[in-house]
């Protein structure tokens, strides 16, 4: 099948590319746009390592087709920091040592940011259920949950 022309916005930058109809958004981000911060852990929407926000909605980029990026605005981990200033979530993850190997971290951060934009004052249970789609095998989630709760607190105070 012929490649399709796609125009999209990723982290406020406009991109144009020719997209294989079968390619996932994750493939496009990683292979076409060289944005390798989004990770592939399963390619079946189970692990959340590829989490991105598309027009305000949290999605697994491995479950979205590249051609569906047409006209959409995508936010990935690469757009999370503001210059050298880390997002409060990123800083809290470092302060809490909420990552060990770090492979799930981009997806967890993107998902947590989406949560705090919807719900600035989540309970521990709400954080745990929101992040249930993001697998982490190293940390046991304890420090991740603490970091998200503390980032929420910090952002509410700001």
């Amino acid at each position, binding site marked *: 099948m012929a490649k399709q022309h796609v125009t999209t916005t990723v982290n406020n930058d406009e991109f144009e590319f020719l997209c294989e109809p079968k390619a996932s958004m994750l493939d496009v981000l990683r292979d076409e746009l060289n944005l390798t*911060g989004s990770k592939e852990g*399963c390619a079946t929407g189970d692990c959340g390592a590829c989490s991105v926000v598309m027009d305000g909605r949290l999605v697994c980029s491995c479950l979205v087709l590249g051609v569906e990026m047409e006209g959409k605005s995508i936010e990935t981990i690469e757009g999370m920091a503001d210059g050298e200033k880390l997002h409060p979530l990123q800083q809290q993850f470092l302060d*809490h*040592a909420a990552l060990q*190997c770090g492979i799930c*971290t981009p997806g967890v951060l993107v998902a947590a940011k989406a949560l705090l934009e919807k719900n600035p004052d989540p309970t521990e249970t709400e954080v745990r259920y929101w992040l249930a789609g993001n697998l982490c095998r190293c940390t046991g989630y304890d420090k991740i949950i603490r970091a998200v709760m503390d980032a929420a607190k910090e952002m509410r105070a700001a």
Partner: protein
Amino acid sequence: MDNSMDVGYSADDKELKFVGKRTNRPDGVDKVTGRARFGADARLPGMLYGKILRSPHAHARIISIDTSKAEALSGVKAVVTRDDFEDRDSEFVPAGEMMVNYRDMVRNIMAREKVLYDGHAVAAVAATSVTIAKQALKLIDVQYEVLPHVIDVVEAMAPGAPLLHDDLFTDGVEPKPTKPSNVAKRLEFNMGDIASGFAEADEILEKTFDTKPVHQGYIEPHSCLASFSENGSAELWCSTQGQYLVRAHCSKLVGMEISKLRVTPSEIGGGFGGKTVVFIEPIALALSKKTYRPIKITMTRDEVFRSSGPTSGGNVRVKVGITKDGKIMACEAELKYQAGAFQGSSVQPGCMCAFAPYDVANVNVIGWDVLSNRPKVAAYRAPGAPISEYAVECVIDELAERIGMDPVDFRLKNAAKEGTQTAYGPKFGPVGFVEVLEATKALDHYKIPLGPNQGRGIGSGFWFNIGGETCVNLNVNEDGTLTLITGSPDIGGSRASMCNMAAEELGIDVGLINPIIADTSVLGFNFLSAGSRTTFACGLATIEAARNAIENMRKRVAQLWDIPLDAVVWEDGAARPASSNAGEFEPMTLPEIAKIAPKTGGPIAGHAEINAQGAGPGFGTHMVDVEVDKETGHVKVLRYTVIQDAGKAIHPSFVEGQYQGGAVQCIGWALNEEYVYGEDGRLQNSGFLDYRIPLASDLPMIDTKIVEVPNPNHPYGVRGVGETPIIPGLAAMSNAISNALGLRMSELPMSPPKVLKAIKEASV
């Protein structure tokens, strides 16, 4: 409840500036911004994509492989099969601190005479796109003669079981068997007189336990990028726990000199023992050798489950005899571990660890290494120990209950301590099991009342910890900063720990040290980041390199001041006269010495090339409260505390992280995780949806208590902490569920159907 951030520093820690402190992680920012480069994040110009054809059969003879149609497909650049890998002799040879049978390894990476498990590699293709490579796999014609298969370990041992290898004769039995079997090895550890021990016992309990194979479940699939040059050398980028072991194995399997292969470890997205061996790396090199183009291979999640190295399942019989007042008199166990399709399960350490936590005079442990039609197992933290210690800790717990003794008191009464003779060999040096148990008893967690259908469980665990070959370079840069070069992949924050130790030694700010993980061309051999060795062994080498750099700086200053070397001391990051007798000199700081290094003899560095010895054994105890839903069989974890002797926590956050992560892996192993095979011998749950690892929503906070009984063989007392946390939780969970239900479970996982079945059987 214990605050997990509360760490009990000992008194002399007050003088430590960086060791024991929660310093910034040098690689942290790159990991929260997506910049860090993991296995699949590398590309090279002209790169081709490799894909692997895998067996759809659990056991079959390969009649023929026809690759001609695949090779003819446009975009396909190379195909490799068994014919592209030279066969190797069947003997165990040392390969970078490990004993490896390359005849087995060459067959595991690419099937030869037979496929031995569902997912066994049969051929591989390199093409200009993943899509073309996948198309090409479909064009490879493999003719199989399907053979009967065997999956279960006990069935695999039975006479008449389908044979995986007709040249495998059980080692360790007399007389030597005349017929081949699936049993590779029998081993036995003995101490004292088991019969008289049981004769003196008032209570004897004998039970058999089953555990299923589980996967390490690292979130990053195996990935590598190989590039062969026409000059015979090659570069390999891959996600691994040990670049030097990858080099050792690949150079042997591909047939090249070690110096010609440069292996660069990517950031590693989890390993837990599963990235200590090679699967795709030699295949990528072979494809690159055929094409002289870079080859990238990344496993899918399905391939990770089917075709990497999960850990053994086991069948363990345990018999323990105790006196009425709770003294263990005799212990006996028989362990049958699945090795997968080739010999080499972790039954040996399983045997050695089984009763190691306890001071018992009479011990007999027999182990069997058993092959079946499953992927060859790899390590999964403390390999072998969780399976045997789970069974032992369940029996211990039930015996304590029988004589009406508190389970912690029971363990305290029998706990191994300094001088205790182990059944596997040595007498223990200083160990912290008693201190761990005392800390457990003191927890608030232990006193919280439980409600209906709730139960509390205790389990303990032991792991040896190891040292091993390690090299470190510490370069003093001309601006007074330092570059710390180690060869140990950083899986969970070890760079921060190394910097803490180096800064402590040098007396400078930790932020002045920039750590890097070197490729194999930079340093001499380094063993794996495994065996809980990194903070201990790489730490020892880092300390030695820092001391070497200090000595070199003192030498420069001694020459400048024209006084003897021993008249110059190093304090707070500066060279100083040892006393007023040495002369009146202003201290020279590290940056001052670095700045004039060119004029005093050239660059300054510190080195260490060591084989670290004297690792300190690790003991831990887990305490968990659960609630069982008797209608659904669902088990909810209410509270969890990990208590473990770290020796010394160099970076407490990452020590806690090891405890918490290990505990949750225990919860997964205990409640959900298992390899499920169909009648056809094929794996049925090769994805995270069906192989369910714990989610954030399944869990409470995991509390931790770091106990610190120093290891005398490390300057700061480090023991190593990565492996012990995977051991105690299986029994703790089982004992908690048993206490909640008033019945005893004896198999894992304790998934809802099995819990319901146990409830039903008990009510009959």
